[in-house]
């Protein structure tokens, strides 16, 4: 992640979450270090919860599955994991993970309620991620 204005970064995350009331939490993570760079949430969450989200993102994008023969040989298959959407019946929440196409060590992790318009939300989240990269450049 390039150095960027923390205020602008926080503003981008805030704009995204406010545009989608079904999005409860947005976290920007550095996948290489699993470091949480910025957060914005409806709920009072402890740092451990954000860290767990960052660790999950890092494992999904860079863990064993990403290095398997399906995704491992990027040059040959072009199968780089760019987005992950997961849901668990018990928590009834949807987690959306987006990797920055411009800077693959950055990822946006979002926790949404069921029923959110995912197509629209993912597009907006991707735009926000791109904007963050532009502003950091």
């Amino acid at each position, binding site marked *: 992640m390039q150095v960027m204005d923390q205020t602008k970064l926080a503003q981008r995350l805030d704009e995204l979450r406010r545009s989608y009331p079904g999005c409860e939490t947005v976290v920007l993570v550095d996948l290489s270090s699993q470091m949480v760079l910025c957060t914005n949430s409806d*709920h*009072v*969450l*402890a740092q*451990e*919860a954000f860290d*767990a989200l960052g*660790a*999950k*993102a*890092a*494992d*999904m994008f860079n*863990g*064993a*599955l990403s290095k*398997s*023969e*399906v*995704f491992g040989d990027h040059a040959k*298959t*072009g*199968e*780089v*994991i*760019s*987005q*992950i*959407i*997961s*849901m*668990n*019946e*018990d*928590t*009834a929440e*949807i987690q959306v993970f987006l990797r920055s196409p411009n800077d693959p060590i950055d990822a946006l992790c979002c926790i949404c*309620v*069921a*029923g*959110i*318009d*995912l*197509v629209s939300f*993912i597009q907006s989240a991707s735009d926000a991620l791109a904007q963050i990269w532009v502003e950091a450049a």
Partner: protein
Amino acid sequence: VPQELKNLSSLSSSIAILRSDDGLDRDAHGYSSCSPPSGGETLEAIAQEINQTVLPRLLCFRNEKQDKVALHVTARRVTDVEEISSELMPENTLMNLDKSVVVAQGQGIQALANSLDTFAARTTQLVVRRDIVKHRGSISNVGVPFAAILANRSGLTQVAQPVSPTSVASRIEAFRTEARAYMRFDVDQLVTREGDETALEKLDCFARATLTHRSSVGTPLEQNSLCAIITLQNTFVCASADNDSHFFSSDLATVSKILSQS
């Protein structure tokens, strides 16, 4: 005092408890109002508290009759029963109330569910205290979600389930009708393989890689979960329900449509 409650009291004394500081207005005993406070929605309010609790907390619920239900909650699941007022437990369920809900996956949960039913029926003003428990370890996935507790009620009061968990099983059915390719595994044994052969080849690689790496933290093959992994070329979906693992080859629009259904 029944022996079970004596046991609970003795266990309570060994746990150091700190009041949580969540900025809410509290009474002298540390309780804050718990919305929605109307009697018919007590179970919903309790469910809401549990579903918002990620880090280990001791949630103490009280009503205007001073009935008390104290539950240990971690990762939105009830892991232990700390205390339940004896008024909430019918005589014949006392023997079934095991302190550890995790271990007591049967009668203990039913006893808890029935006690909560009684509590809800006696409650019009609900308050809650969220205590931080110092000696309760870290986040864990053990425990019982509130919906599972309610499913064990014997029907003392008919109250709508406060949590409406989105069903992974129903989404699997939806994916199956729309996916390009579908595979189902019973543990590691391939049971079903249907759809476009080219898509199946890629899906087969994905399925076997996922099954191989399922112990990995981020590989979501835990029960009743669903995960879509999206690349520029493909969208793979893996899901787990009823001890089977399901894999689909799909596209982002279909994934979004099916997951957006609430």
